[in-house]
């Protein structure tokens, strides 16, 4: 069974290599290390968000509010930076993570204590968070010149040839790997999503576990909120609009079952990379901008169909047994 899981990730990895190869035929330098580093850097935020979304989906929930959370936290952090440029970046990082987690915990509480379906909760907070940005910013943009240099420099800071943004993504991947495979709450996500009823019987608090998933997803979204705003050096109501569906799509391409209980860190990362490469490469290889949307849509459908094929439940094998015994 690990074989199947592994092979699913292997297929995806192969698809990514194929994609890179294909792009290289049209655009030679694409596979150059320097460019791949760039691609990874560009995909970092998607990877992190996909990881946060993964624990939520694995718990049989969905968080449609991540992009709004990201934008709201980004605006909050940018506003702090604009008004108090002296506040150091590490503090802002903590603020971003904490504020994101707070927003996530609102989702979590509603799901946990009131038992409202997660898709409804996050559909609601999706618009509410977005609206709050408008209220706190009065609709105005915060532009590059209103941000402090250190604020903008942080994600770009180069360490050993990789930007800090990329390093943060790598650290997030590692942290999620440990969380998901080696800690009781991490395993509880899978239990709760795989069979919530049974989880109750094993002493796992289903509501609390889901709450935790939303908090984690929110914290990651908050962190990404700062990174996004610093990277693009702008904060306004509409940033990352519609990004939530892209994050969900990355998870699904990565083989995370929307029905809960199945998924892996590797899958989420590869799914995000796949989508990131498709989105990043299309402008590069000079495909008409008007073709991009259709191509990424087709890519999602094909990837999902592929995943489903390898997941398709085979009938029970009763006859084989007979043959072996005969």
């Amino acid at each position, binding site marked *: 069974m690990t074989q199947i899981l592994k092979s699913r990730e292997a297929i995806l990895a192969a698809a990514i290599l194929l994609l890179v190869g294909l792009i290289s035929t049209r655009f030679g330098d694409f596979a150059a290390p320097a460019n791949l580093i760039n691609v990874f850097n560009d995909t970092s935020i998607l990877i992190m968000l996909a990881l946060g979304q993964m624990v939520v989906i694995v718990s049989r929930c969905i968080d449609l509010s991540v992009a709004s959370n990201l934008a709201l936290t980004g605006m909050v952090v940018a506003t702090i930076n604009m008004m108090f440029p002296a506040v150091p970046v590490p503090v802002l990082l903590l603020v971003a993570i904490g504020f994101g987690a707070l927003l996530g915990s609102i989702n979590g509480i509603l799901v946990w204590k009131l038992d409202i379906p997660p898709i409804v909760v996050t559909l*609601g907070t*999706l618009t509410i968070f977005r609206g709050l940005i408008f209220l706190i910013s009065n*609709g105005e943009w915060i532009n590059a010149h209103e941000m402090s240099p250190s604020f903008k420099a942080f994600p770009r800071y180069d360490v050993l040839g990789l930007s800090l943004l990329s390093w943060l993504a790598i650290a997030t991947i590692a942290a999620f790997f440990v969380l998901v495979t080696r800690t009781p709450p991490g395993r509880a996500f899978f239990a709760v999503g795989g069979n919530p009823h049974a989880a109750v019987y094993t002493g796992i608090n289903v509501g609390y576990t889901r709450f935790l998933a939303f908090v984690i997803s929110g914290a990651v979204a908050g962190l990404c909120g700062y990174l996004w705003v610093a990277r693009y050096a702008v904060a306004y*109501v509409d940033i990352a609009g519609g990004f939530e569906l892209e994050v969900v799509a990355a998870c699904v391409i990565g083989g995370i079952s929307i*029905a809960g209980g199945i998924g892996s860190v590797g899958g989420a990362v590869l799914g995000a990379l796949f989508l990131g490469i498709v989105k990043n490469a299309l402008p590069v290889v000079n495909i008409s901008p008007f073709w991009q949307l259709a191509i990424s849509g087709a890519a999602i459908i094909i990837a999902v169909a592929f995943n*489903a094929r390898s997941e*398709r439940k085979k009938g029970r094998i009763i006859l084989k047994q007979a043959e072996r015994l005969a």
Partner: protein
Amino acid sequence: MSDQALDRDQRAPDRNIPDRLTSPFQRIFKSWETLLLAVAIAIFIINSFSSPYFLDPWNLSDATFNFTEKAMIAFAMALLIISGEIDLSVASIIALTSTAMGYLAQFGFGVPELVAAGLLVGMLCGAFNGFLVTGLGLPSIVVTIGTMSLFRGISYIVLGDQAFRGYPAGFSFFGQGYVWWVFTFEIVLFAVLAVLYGILLHKTDFGRAVYAIGNNPVGAQFSGVRVGRVKFILFMLTGLMAGIAAICLTSRLGSTRPSIAFGWELEIVTMVVLGGVNILGGSGTIPGVVIAAFVMGMVTFGFGLINVPGIVMSIFIGLLLISVIALPRLWLNYRTRRKAV
């Protein structure tokens, strides 16, 4: 021995089980629709006080455009969600359908042909979703995230940075015409569709199958319901309604761009859920969706009249969505807690 147990023992084997325990009045009184209707009436009253322009028939008539097209899709979407599926590609189907009509209009086709094309393309898109979901067994939420990009993407391929204009003269009737007095074609169509969908869901075999599938697809299949076929039809219906909405919207705008109806899918889902349809499938009603459509339309219009930006309205809709679902549950929790003490 408790009364209950005594009761049970004394009941004769051939005792009669009543059809229902509650009267129709009780059922209506306790229903979601009633709660929502109260909200709608409250909003109506608040609106009429907050702006002097609200209670004007022509203004109200104009305001219906805020929801009619979305609501048409919401009817079909309600059935789809009750059956346990979802279609996030509806707004993109509008774009593709509108593009197809615009394309044909370039060649001088008349109004009937354009309408036919609109219905057909919408239905085909729905059928494609239906095939992916029922034929290949893929989860609909994911599939339709994919087709959402694909359908609109095709629109972009066809149109690029261009727009289709030049629709024939009569075409503007669907989105701009009046049937009688202040009643626009759209609001009349909305009403007719509401009745049709109400009958389809609540009064026919097909509607019953939709509920059965939503509650337990396997059980429904084992009871002889053709689950795949019903779901396929629902996807086609949703596509068809998107096609109809596309005709109205295109006619109202008088032109087609690939970005048409962008972001509508979540608004439509919100409308359906606000209408009391269980997002997990199995329950919900058309009257609920109709009231929800009016609520959303009135909120948008009422806030618009006092020049509140749209985004603030959406906060309100978001809060409404969560609180309308949360309040009954809070109330229930409160009551059971009090009982237990």
